[in-house]
């Protein structure tokens, strides 16, 4: 029983990370039809800059962690908005060029990060409580998993409230359905594009700081490795569906944890098989729009 509880909660923690990356990917694809392969770079730069700030303020304190999270989110948002404004905006409806540019940006940014911070992982120091465990039903759960879950839930609630109760949220929801018709109502949908990139980048940057707590280090490749699973989550949840991304994040991460434990470390294989099953049986994903 304690093992199942441990796997469930650690799976939820990993799912929280996946969601922070996948939420932006899903919103960006839903509104703009852009498959953003550079999204992992927003996560990595958020993590690096966030921890640079934390290190200079006070290593290992809560307020330094808060500053790192805030900085990571802001940096992620700014880099993502700049990417949309300077690179993607000229390439709407040119999907091959979008893929080439975002893949190129992802590769170039990894090289840039390695040039600045080196190829070895940078180990981070977080508040001591996060490194301890809490016992639940006999399972000793690492405390950082609770923080991941709480932050992801807060981000999900914030995005839902934004989409539901603000003018730009309304524009984004309408744009996911029919972008041209939004324009035909006199709305400059390009601003919404930039905003969605910024929101996605903020979630990814925040996710970068949290990922470095989860793994204990930051590296130039941390965004790329999480991006693969975030793409899988986005497809399984249904491209463009935030709720689908949230549900799929949990399902994929929990499946991964259970398969790793009970099936001899085959978590990644289990996730890929789940993706194949979804593509074969329900290509639009769990909550995606009908094609």
């Amino acid at each position: 029983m304690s093992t199942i509880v441990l796997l469930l909660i650690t799976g939820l923690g990993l799912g929280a990370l996946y969601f922070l990356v996948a939420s932006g990917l899903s919103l960006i694809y839903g509104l703009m039809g852009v498959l953003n392969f550079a999204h992992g770079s927003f996560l990595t730069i958020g993590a690096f800059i966030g921890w640079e700030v934390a290190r200079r303020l006070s290593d290992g304190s809560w307020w330094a962690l808060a500053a790192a999270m805030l900085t990571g989110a802001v940096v992620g948002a700014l880099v993502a908005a700049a990417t949309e404004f300077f690179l993607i905006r000229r390439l709407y409806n040119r999907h091959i060029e979008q893929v080439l540019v975002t893949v190129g940006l992802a590769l170039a940014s990894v090289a840039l990060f390695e040039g600045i911070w080196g190829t070895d992982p940078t180990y981070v120091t977080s508040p001591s409580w996060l490194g301890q465990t809490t016992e639940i039903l006999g399972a000793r759960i690492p405390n950082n998993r609770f923080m991941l879950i709480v932050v992801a839930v807060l981000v999900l609630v914030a995005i839902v409230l934004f989409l539901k109760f603000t003018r730009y949220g309304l524009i984004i929801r309408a744009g996911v359905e029919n972008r041209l018709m939004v324009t035909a109502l006199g709305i400059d949908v390009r601003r919404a594009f930039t905003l969605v990139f910024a929101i996605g980048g903020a979630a990814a940057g925040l996710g970068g700081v949290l990922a470095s707590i989860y793994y204990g280090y930051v590296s130039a490749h941390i965004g790329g490795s999480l991006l693969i699973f975030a793409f899988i989550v986005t497809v399984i949840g249904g491209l463009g569906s935030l709720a689908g991304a949230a549900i799929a994040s949990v399902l994929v991460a929990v499946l991964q944890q259970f398969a790793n434990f009970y099936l001899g470390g085959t978590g990644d294989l289990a996730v890929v098989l789940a993706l194949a099953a979804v593509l074969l049986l329900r290509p639009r994903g769990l909550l995606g729009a009908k094609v």
Partner: protein
Amino acid sequence: MSTNSSTTNVLTVRNLYGRIQGQQVVEDVSFNVLDTGVTALLGRNGVGKTSTIKSILGLIDRSGEVTLGGRRIDRLPTHKVVQLGVGYVPEDREVFGKLTVAENLKLAERSAHPNRALVEELFPDLVQRQAQLAGTLSGGQQQMVSLARALLNQNRLLLVDEPTKGLSPKIVGEVAQALLAAAKTVPILLVEQNLQVIRQLADRVVVLSGGRVVFTGEASELLDDPERIQRYLGVHSGSERSSAGQTDATVPA
């Protein structure tokens, strides 16, 4: 062809070309829309009526000269054309199905003081359905939402594309009545296949064939001439059934 005085034209279109994915769908179209009443843009299926409307709005690639109240709009992006006072009611309604009726209307509001009173007067049914998802409405109700989105704002021109398409005769009558009421305050460029609706609404007509304008004039010049109706619209005199096989509905006078 008749021509109208430029001083009373709200919209002038000169040598307009439109392309979709490189294919020419509007070819050298020129016509005017007066600043009062309803101008109907007619023609057989596939001649480029909807593409002409979309070219004016900039929803497809276009070249040529389009002026709204004397101001060139052919190089403006769609949202700026609309902001200048062009309301658009698209073919197939295109309501946002996952948004509520209230959200569809809220999204369309371009000013702090939208004309909600007019919308509530014309479409009382929508008031009862504010919280309903637009995707769950009937075709007629969705058309009301689509019209209401355009009528909420102070417009200089309405572009209305096949508003009665696929609707029951009763709803066609309601839509025609709403357009009649709207036409008292704003000029309308109307694409329509239902000849009875055209007879009721149109003051002037512009006829397209093969992507070009082949006739412009008073509506009666075309509608009272069965031979022209047959030639331009493919409608048999008396039956008033279009080449597309659409049946005309009776529109209350």
